[in-house]
């Protein structure tokens, strides 16, 4: 069974459904989370580096600018994201009885 991933990792993977530059990812995450999550560039770069090592994302360059990296989901990254989504859905389904408490 796949281990759960952190919230920050989940949103990074989610923001990479379309290849994006780091800054675009940051904006994407803020949008996706409705402004709830604002990730600093230092935090995000740290997480991206770990995820790259784990083979969840890969990086490339565009327009011959080797400083600016464009990030893409790997097949493994997609799989991890989908599995996490399924897991979260299951969690929500299992906790549906809590709706009455809201």
């Amino acid at each position, binding site marked *: 069974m796949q281990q759960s991933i952190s919230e920050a990792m989940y949103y990074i993977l989610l923001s990479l459904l379309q290849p994006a530059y*780091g*800054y675009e990812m940051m904006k994407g995450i803020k949008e996706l989370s409705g402004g709830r999550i604002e990730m*600093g*560039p230092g935090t995000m*770069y740290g997480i991206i*580096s770990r995820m790259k090592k784990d083979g969840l994302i890969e990086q490339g360059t565009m327009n011959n600018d080797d*400083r*600016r990296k464009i990030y893409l989901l790997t097949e493994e990254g997609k799989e991890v994201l989908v599995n996490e989504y399924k897991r979260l859905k299951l969690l929500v389904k299992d906790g549906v009885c809590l709706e009455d408490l809201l």
Partner: protein
Amino acid sequence: MLGGFIMKYRYKFNYDDYYLIGENEWFYEEMAKKGWILKKRGIFLSKFIRSEPCEMSYRVELAGKSKLPKAQIALYEDCGWEMVTRMGDMYIFGALKDSGAPEFYGSTMERTVPYKHLINTTWKSILINIVNMLIFFVLPFINVFRRGGGIGAIFGNMGAYYTVDLVKSTALTLTLFLVYGFILIVMPIRLYKAVKLFRSFKNGEEIKRPKKKNLWKNIVMNGVPMLAVVFFLLSIVQFFHKSKYELSDGNHKPIISLAELNIEGESTPVREGEYSFIDDRIVERRALLSTFWELTESKMTDDGEVSLYQTVYYVKNKNLVKPFVEALKNDYSYCEEIEVQGVDKAFALNEEKFCIVKGRYVYWLEFRRGGEFIDIVEVLEKTEVFTDNGEYLEDLL
């Protein structure tokens, strides 16, 4: 402004150690408020360029083990930060305060990694320097301890050794003292501060900003290493800058020639290994506290070969003459004060080694002779250098 001239650039001592990020960020922001924008940070100084006073934000990022990746820098720049300068593993980014550039990290807990590295390297550096100091500063004097001199004798010998070094190689000795003194004091302080900062970041505490300048700390932290660099450069210049004279070239005072001692004969080459100093010419060297001349001369007389190795020091500070002579004598267990006409003090360290003081001149004479015994004291007394009133010696410099 100086008399209508507006300075475009300004240099200031770095505010604090690079890893104290709050202090450094605060310093550069305060300078921007006064109209000085950070341009470059060097080892000791920061360079600022004149601008309108403005509200700037500066953020320091430490790379830790390796360089900050280009992609990370590009990401920061995309977010509105500009990389202003880099010094070692310290990267400084700047942005206008109202630019909306986001903080690098959500919490200080994420900033602990470079501090772990810093703490490890500082520990190692302290240990390496202590071992270095033991090897180079203390161990050479341990033989006194073995002879039963005790710890006090070790320090006594060290004191004598470094007094001689201070007079002969002032700049280099001061460099070593400054460097090791600085390391011994600053490194443990750095370690303590880094550990404190590491712990506070681990607990998620905010980065602290200072409330006022600490001028004296800046001067010591930057001035001492800077002075060490200056002394080191000076010692290199002095090492290579030496004058050489032929002994036969007219006035060779204050050096004493064998001819002046009425030791006549054919000059013979100085044997390698006989003396530490091998040159058949007078070598003049200048240090900050002294000027000294060295010569080794050898002659074949009817009674055998006579060699004289001598170093003559002109000690610039009168008060240093006595401790310097004491230090020169320190290595010799036998030392007898002898009477030599025309000098202030004279010591025989054995039948062939003499230390003679005349005013600020200190003579170190080592004779080697084969054949018949020569009464060196009697010979020295007849030497012109010691029999005249000595005034001409002062004119030499």
